[in-house]
């Protein structure tokens, strides 16, 4: 098990190297630079700035320098947010994204699994059809629609909750962005759970358990759930990585000071270092959660064993 984890972590190194390299050159091949703005800078100023940031060096030298710094954990200065380094920006934003992301993930997982299970147990009933219709809506309605609608109802019309901002970080500030962030994922979890649960309920070992006269509750929670969780768990990795590294849309709609926006803002503004920093961050999260999921798989499914 330990050697499995170590092997996986070792294989993450070349993966990250490839991610860094590809994104470095992709960014550089996009036209324009971080300092081409509506208000153009004079060529001399541009030269001063390029010199200060080492952007006047040949590209391969910049790449090697960048690679060396990344290995040391230094993602360099942000070209757009000039008072901060990329490390500082991510350090400031990540806790907010993670906190909101965890709440959303919890809500999506618990709500989705519960809804999916209930729907599966009453397959083709009115409840099932209702829940699945709702989840189709959840999957298809984008969060840039859900967010404003929630705000209009609960903040503008009813004045129950703040329209945005992190405030003092209390839950009332988090409820609307958390719901907007969680709903689409909740819907996915619900559909996955329902499908897997229906399948699990028709397997031989469940039929056997039923034949033994075990109560439905035990059959579902102890036996069927375990099998039904497999697809849910495999979806957990991309979902967790996406939620915890922040959503640009939700953060913009609700003015959440997380890291999700940096990726989009960085790309638009050609803030090379900021984009690279967030790309690496997302890559790390994806790798870590894939690993976590593989471990969970081993625990849930006796057929999977990590040597």
């Amino acid at each position, binding site marked *: 098990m330990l050697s499995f984890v170590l092997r996986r972590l070792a294989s993450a190194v070349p993966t990250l190297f490839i991610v860094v390299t590809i994104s470095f050159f992709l960014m550089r091949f*996009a*036209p*324009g*630079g*971080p300092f*081409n*703005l*509506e*208000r*153009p*800078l*004079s060529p*001399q*100023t541009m030269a*001063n*700035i390029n*010199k*200060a*940031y080492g952007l006047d060096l040949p590209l391969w030298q910049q790449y090697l320098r960048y690679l060396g710094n990344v290995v040391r954990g230094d993602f360099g200065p942000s070209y*757009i*947010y*000039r*008072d*901060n380094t990329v490390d500082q*920006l991510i350090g400031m*934003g990540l806790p*907010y994204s993670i906190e909101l992301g*965890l709440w959303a*993930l*919890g*809500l999506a*997982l*618990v709500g989705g*699994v519960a809804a999916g299970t209930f729907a599966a147990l009453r397959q083709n009933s009115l409840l099932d059809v209702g829940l699945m219709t709702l989840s189709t809506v959840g999957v298809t309605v984008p969060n840039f629609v859900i967010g404003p609608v929630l*705000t209009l109802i609960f*903040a*503008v019309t009813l004045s*129950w*909750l703040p*329209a*945005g*901002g*992190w405030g003092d970080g*209390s*839950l*009332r500030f988090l*409820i609307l962005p958390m719901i907007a962030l969680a709903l689409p994922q909740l819907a996915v979890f619900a559909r996955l759970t329902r499908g897997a649960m229906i399948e699990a309920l028709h397997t031989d070992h469940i039929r056997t358990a039923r034949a033994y006269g075990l109560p439905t509750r035990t059959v579902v*929670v102890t036996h069927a759930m375990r099998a039904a969780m497999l697809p849910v768990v495999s979806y*957990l990795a991309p979902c*967790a990585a996406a939620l*915890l590294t922040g959503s640009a849309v939700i953060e*913009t*709609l609700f*003015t*959440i*000071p997380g890291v999700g926006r940096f990726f989009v803002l960085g790309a638009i503004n050609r803030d090379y270092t900021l984009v690279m920093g967030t790309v690496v961050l997302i890559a790390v999260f994806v790798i*870590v959660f894939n690993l*976590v999921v593989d471990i*969970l798989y081993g*625990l849930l499914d006796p057929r999977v064993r990590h040597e």
Partner: protein
Amino acid sequence: MTAPLTGRRPLPMTTMTRTLRRAALIGSLLLGASPALAEVVLNRGNAGEPQTLDQAHTSINIEEFILKDLYEGLTIYDAKGEIVPGAAESWTVSDDGTVYTFKLRDNGKWSDGSPVTAEDFVFSLMRIEDPKTAAGYANILYPIKNAEKVNKSGAPLDQLGVKAIDSKTLEITLERATPYFLELLAHQTALPISKASFEKNGADFVKPGIMVSNGGFKLTEHVANDHLTLTRNENHWDAANIKLDKVVIYPLEDQAAAVRRYEAGELQVNYNFSADQIERLKKQFGDEVHISPALATYYYVFDTRTAPMDDVRVRRALSMGIDRDFLATEIYSGSQQPAYGFVPPGLPDYGAPSLADFATKSQLDREDEALALLKEAGFGEGGKPLEIEIRYNTNPNHERVATAVADMWKTAFNAKVTLVNLDVSSHYAYLQEGGKFSVARAGWTADYGDPENFLAMNTTSNKTFNYAKWSNADYDALMAKSNDEKDPAARAKLLHEAEALLMKEQPVAPLLYQNELWLVSKKVKGWVDNANNQHLSRFLSIGE
């Protein structure tokens, strides 16, 4: 952070449910409970996160609003947007207009209580021009003697024309008389920093808790992308007249979200909203909706290096073919005004801009004249086909404008028009690096309230800003002469002549004068709309 995911069984989910349920309960108890506020707080929506709070790196107005609340330049704009003494109490100007001697206020203090000295200003100005600082806007202060030389070739900093005569007397020498120099000093790049603080803290001098400022407020909190808290600076020389205890600034990138927060009563002031909301907001908020003319021009540039745009007849015809009223009312819902001059109105010393000769004609007459001009130039029926490509930076409004203009040219001149859009960096990089084009969109917002700031963009020597690569000796001569003219009226006349020439030649076709859009609650007192778009929180208060 993986706590809820590492468990073996569904157990952690039930714990999670319980936590959630408990949290939801606590949350519902908190609903509606807003803390009683004894202090006077102004919540200002600002259209985005400042990229920097460093005077050497700032370039956009959302930074300007914050920086000018924090710092005070030698001159400042008052509530009406007029230049008044700031950190300097008074000044004298030498007869030839090249030496300014500023007397700083005796009671001028930094937020840490130390005095604001002439040495601080010398240090700040040197820092901006130091090539090592790589200040993006160093060029705006090039009128200061040797500033350009220092900034470009790294001449010794002490050659810069700034000198501390004593701790409260500052002397600034200019390259040549610069009629708008007092306006320049009110620009955010000319705001001072405390030398002592910078020497102690280095680049961290911009951080909350560390920053030392001399304006009406000091920075007490900065959560990037969430808010900045500014607290009244008790050491400010006019602190007794500052009515607000706190100003909280929210960086609201998404205009619709900003409007929702204003509607929810979370903001008393909000900068910028989408033009298509004007009618609705006016119905709801009446005169809380402020549409105030700005010193900004939205224009199209013709590449005068290549045919057919090298032909003044074609440029004039195309410019005449644009129905500016349509753009202003239909696309911008009246949030912008049709433009026929390059300099926006609202500059007191300059008066109304010199307009293109076709400004007074009806759109139908313009089109007839345009068709005749095109025919003369060999286009139109039986002539060469007119092929045009409009480049613009990606933005829904710019796209609507380009589509409308393309349609106007197609209908009126049977032109073949294609559209190309790039994101803002690529678009301006292309223009600035001298890429060939036929028509391109550009915009300019004044750095300081002087027509020179607009007109100088079109001189032959202006390699970066003159996207049209238009070169006209008469125009260059008029601009040079205006720089040396000391009499304001005579200078304004020269600049008017230059603008009239520019509008006759149309290397640039101004389309719209822009307006600034603000939402200002009735509770806010002291707000005055002004073309310079200057609204220091210091001059605002909150009533019932």
